[in-house]
């Protein structure tokens, strides 16, 4: 078997996993931030949702502006002899930016569906805000958060537009499955493209299926999530 077949798969998976972990925390933090901010709520929501509705190339363009060689960040990186553009880190950052809105929106929806009274009750009982978040809010919005994780992961795995602009398409370094498929099709190598396409479909579908299974099993095991009849 050709080992170059697996390199883009490995790059894609490690990019998507790392991006999902970062997005998980950022998205939840943004959700709590927007729910708690009374002023400018719509403004912040708009900013956080923008990467989802903008063309990925526009997102890539902004990332180039912000982190490219001529940007402040780029000049700062240059001090350490580091170039962000066309690095593997750039694939992660692109994946984080495009998957972030999915995590943010699903987490926010899940938190907003919580019964406010249980949060008030915890406050009146003297529980700190930090503990309320980890022990009350998060466990009771488990489904929503998990849905957000799945959506963010699959989106990160399939990221193409911003990645190719910021990270390029360097085989063995920044070439993910998505960009590899693009290259293969451009070169007319449909056999190779088929292989990668089936890998992407298989991974994405498997992740969704696994999570669905896990959630329904959890639901059966933990009685608090089951609704009582009548």
């Amino acid at each position, binding site marked *: 078997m050709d080992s170059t077949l697996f390199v883009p798969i490995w790059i894609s998976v490690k990019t998507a996993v790392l991006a999902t972990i970062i997005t998980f925390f950022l998205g939840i933090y943004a959700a709590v931030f927007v729910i708690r901010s009374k002023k400018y709520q719509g403004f912040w929501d708009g900013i956080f949702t923008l990467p989802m509705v903008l063309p990925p190339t526009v997102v890539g363009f902004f990332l180039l502006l912000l982190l490219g060689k001529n940007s402040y960040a780029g000049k700062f990186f240059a001090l350490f002899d580091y170039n962000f553009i066309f690095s593997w880190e750039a694939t992660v950052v692109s994946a984080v930016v495009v998957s972030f809105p999915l995590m943010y929106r699903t987490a926010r929806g899940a938190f907003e569906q919580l*019964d406010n*009274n*249980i949060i*008030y*009750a*915890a*406050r*009146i*009982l*003297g*529980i*700190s805000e930090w503990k309320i978040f980890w*022990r*009350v809010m998060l*466990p*009771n919005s488990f489904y929503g958060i998990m849905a957000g994780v799945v959506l963010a992961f699959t989106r990160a795995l399939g990221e193409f537009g911003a990645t190719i602009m910021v990270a390029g398409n360097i085989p063995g370094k920044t070439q993910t499955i998505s960009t590899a498929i693009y290259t293969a099709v451009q070169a007319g190598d449909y056999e190779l493209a088929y292989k990668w396409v089936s890998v992407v479909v298989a991974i994405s579908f498997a992740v969704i299926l696994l999570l669905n299974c896990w959630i329904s099993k959890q639901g059966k095991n*933990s*009685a*608090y*999530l*089951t*609704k*009582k009849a009548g």
Partner: protein
Amino acid sequence: MLDVDITKKLGEFELRTKFSITDEKTAILGASGCGKSMTLKCIAGIETPDAGRIVLNDRVLYDSNKKINLPPQKRRVGYLFQNYALFPNMTVAQNIGFALEGKPEKNNVVNEFINKLRLNGLENKYPSQLSGGQQQRTALARMLALDTEIIMFDEPLSALDSFLKWELEQELLDIFGGFDRPILYVSHDRGEVFRLCDQIVILDKGEIVSNSTKHNLFENPKSVTGTILTGCKNISPVFCRGNGIVIAEDWGVGFKIPQGIDEDTVRFVGVHAHLMRNGAEYENVFNAQIINVIEDVFNWIVVLKLSPQAKKTFRWVVSKKEIARLQTGTNITVGMASEQVLFLES
């Protein structure tokens, strides 16, 4: 001792409550949307008033002038929510012990309240596996396990069917009997409030219209709002007065004013539906026409026209044991003592 003096804009009206309670059990009685739950939430700190001051046992919880606004965590109040607000992801024992985590006395206190509220055997059940009564007892245990300076109840019984309601009311009565700190109980149910509390504050559209002991309130409600909330079905404005008699405009009949009431101050009369009697041996006697008879479980609800000039009908409730049959269209003699008529000033 709790002192409340706050204002808060609530949509169409302004909530303006000023009252103070000591160790007695006080109820805030009012129709829905009058601001009674909002008052509790402001005391607990989950809502912030626009201005004013809240003091609990010499601790200032809120003072708009001094810019003091303690977070709910520091207020040391107990609060029972209408839906109990149990943590769905925690068992009964975890719910009760959540606020005591890290304290050495946790297990003892949790066990004590599990026993006190007869939750034995349910320690490891989740809220969704409990009946309504068990949920309420868990919420009570969670609230009482913390040594708070006041306990507050936000309509804990109003969403329940009458059988369960009675059962849970007995539970509350037990708790109230053994609690020596102030209790604030919000409800729109006069019967519940009368059975559970001693002092009653009546709130109408954000304003306190009365604050008195329950017996005083039910015998002498003074205002129309108070009278309606005590369950009086018949209220009429007075359109002329003189010689110790006031004429009720809606019913076209007069009522004799008893000694000690100044007739010039009487603006309305109120008559409780069940205080009217069949017979002529009373100070106020009317020859009324029966418009309609509705059969209730133990009573007749009789719609009467007290006089031919009456603009509105009068609701009379009489036991089926007292009168076996009532014929629509016929006349009946009814009457009552003036002491039982409510003469209202506003």
